[in-house]
């Protein structure tokens, strides 16, 4: 397996995939900077909660785009060069699938760590109130990863199965937008949509007073059933994607 992963790394040489992740992180950094720029000292008391509320919302669109691009970039080289028919005479198809997933996960981990660094960095620079909520930040990293990897494995399954990469890219973008708007959907419906889980697993809620136009953030309980469901989705999508890829005749 290590050889297969190592070769995935070599295949991405010159493909500038990290650049895509970096650009998306820059967008997230700019957005965070802009969102926090109009906050006064009173608002910054709830700075950590503000970020833990805003970042998952933005992730609904940012992370699916990263997942779609990474999965597509890792798979299109195989379709273009018709390499699956050679690779599958050397190593098992399930190992190709697993190696791509592991290497793709590194990019998703990089993106999740990147946004965590943005949050912590800005929190320290702008002196957010109260102690650093390390536990909530760690949970945020974990939830972001679980949801992102589930979306990624969906994207990888489609990207490896379909040669035309416009299909997974379009699906990724549509999914992202549905995820963003799913915040307004009933909870039952939200939990049926992969891309809405950034919102489902949010640890912070918001009250908005219409008269004073003031926002107040509060900690919410973790939605364990939501976490359980997304893990089930992950296992199912991984299994189905792998079976489809293994059975596909090349």
């Amino acid at each position, binding site marked *: 397996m290590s*050889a*297969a992963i*190592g*070769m995935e790394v*070599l*295949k991405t*040489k*010159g*493909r500038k995939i990290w650049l895509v992740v970096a650009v998306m992180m820059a967008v997230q950094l700019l957005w965070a900077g802009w969102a926090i720029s109009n906050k006064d000292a009173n608002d910054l008391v709830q700075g950590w909660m503000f970020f833990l509320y805003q970042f998952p919302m933005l992730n609904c669109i940012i992370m699916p785009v990263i997942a779609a691009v990474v999965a597509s970039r890792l798979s299109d*080289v195989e379709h*273009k*060069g*018709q*390499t*699956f*028919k*050679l*690779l*599958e*005479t*050397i*190593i*098992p198809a399930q190992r190709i699938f697993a190696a791509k997933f592991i290497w793709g996960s590194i990019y998703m981990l990089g993106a999740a760590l990147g946004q965590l660094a943005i949050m912590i960095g800005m929190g320290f620079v702008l002196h957010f109130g109260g102690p650093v909520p390390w536990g909530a930040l760690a949970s945020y990293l974990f939830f972001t990863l679980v949801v992102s990897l589930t979306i990624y494995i969906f994207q990888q399954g489609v990207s490896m199965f379909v040669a035309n990469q416009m299909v997974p890219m379009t699906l990724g973008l549509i999914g992202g937008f549905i995820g963003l708007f799913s915040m307004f959907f009933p909870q039952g419906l939200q939990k049926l949509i992969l891309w809405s889980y950034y919102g489902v697993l949010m640890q912070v809620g918001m009250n908005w007073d219409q008269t004073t136009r003031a926002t107040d953030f509060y900690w919410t309980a973790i939605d364990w059933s939501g976490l359980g469901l997304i893990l089930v989705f992950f296992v199912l999508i991984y299994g189905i994607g792998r079976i489809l890829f293994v059975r596909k*005749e*090349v």
Partner: protein
Amino acid sequence: MSNIIETEGLSKQYGNVYRVKDVDLSVPEGAIYGFLGPNGAGKSTTLKMILGLAKPTEGEITVFGKRVNSKNRLENLKNVGSLIESPSYYGHLTGEENLRIFQTLRGVSKQNIAEVLKIVRLENQQNKKVSQYSLGMKQRLGLASALLGYPKLLILDEPTNGLDPAGISEMRELIQSLPQKFGMTVVVSSHLLSEIDQLATRVGIIREGELVYQDSLTKLHQYSKQHLAVRTMNNEVTKSFLSRNGVAWEAEDDYLIIPQMKDTMIAEISKALGQNNIGLVRIEERKKSLEDIFLELTGTAVSL
């Protein structure tokens, strides 16, 4: 001589159509087996099934004496190199990097990369991105990938497709040298009769998914031997005359086809026919070309 590949009743059905039907292939060790057939006859599908890239609907495949199943497939393929339809490559990487990927995954020595690059004469182009390679160079890189593990069996599907005459000749020379140099058995498919004629020692001809001929190329050439076509005023009486004198004949339209023979024999037959009041009106020398035989077997126009 033992067979490296044997298939038994190998079939592949897509929907209601059999793309490959009851193919019993036998590839002897050390042979260059030419798998010949028109485009769409089922050559690639058959080869893909041997490599486990397509699942047979029916039939068995035996490679190196072992019946292939999903469990031992990759173990068996360790001694098989393949180039199916078109070369597999990563265009954004150099030739050397491409080979490094397949060498690492195959778990063979790194030294093999330099050796196979030399065999396919790409050593001076190894640091160039493959996307900048010509089609011929890509084909040679594909062959190099297939050769990396010095396999006992090499399966090449239309390796000269799209190459110019010089490229075709170069590829042919390369393939021809492999059994002698490395003791490889080579299966090479093509829709070009002339190519297989120059390359193969044994040939299998496939038509609409069915294997219509399989034997040595020498035997196929025997079919193209010269024969005589005779027309007389009374072919019926001539038939019994020929049979009585031990001359094999075959009726074809108004002619009787008899084997080629010495002039003295022909003169004697002619004289004897005259003595029996059978007027000899035509005697022609005919030769079935290899193309005619191919056409008869495949029912399609031959590509030259």
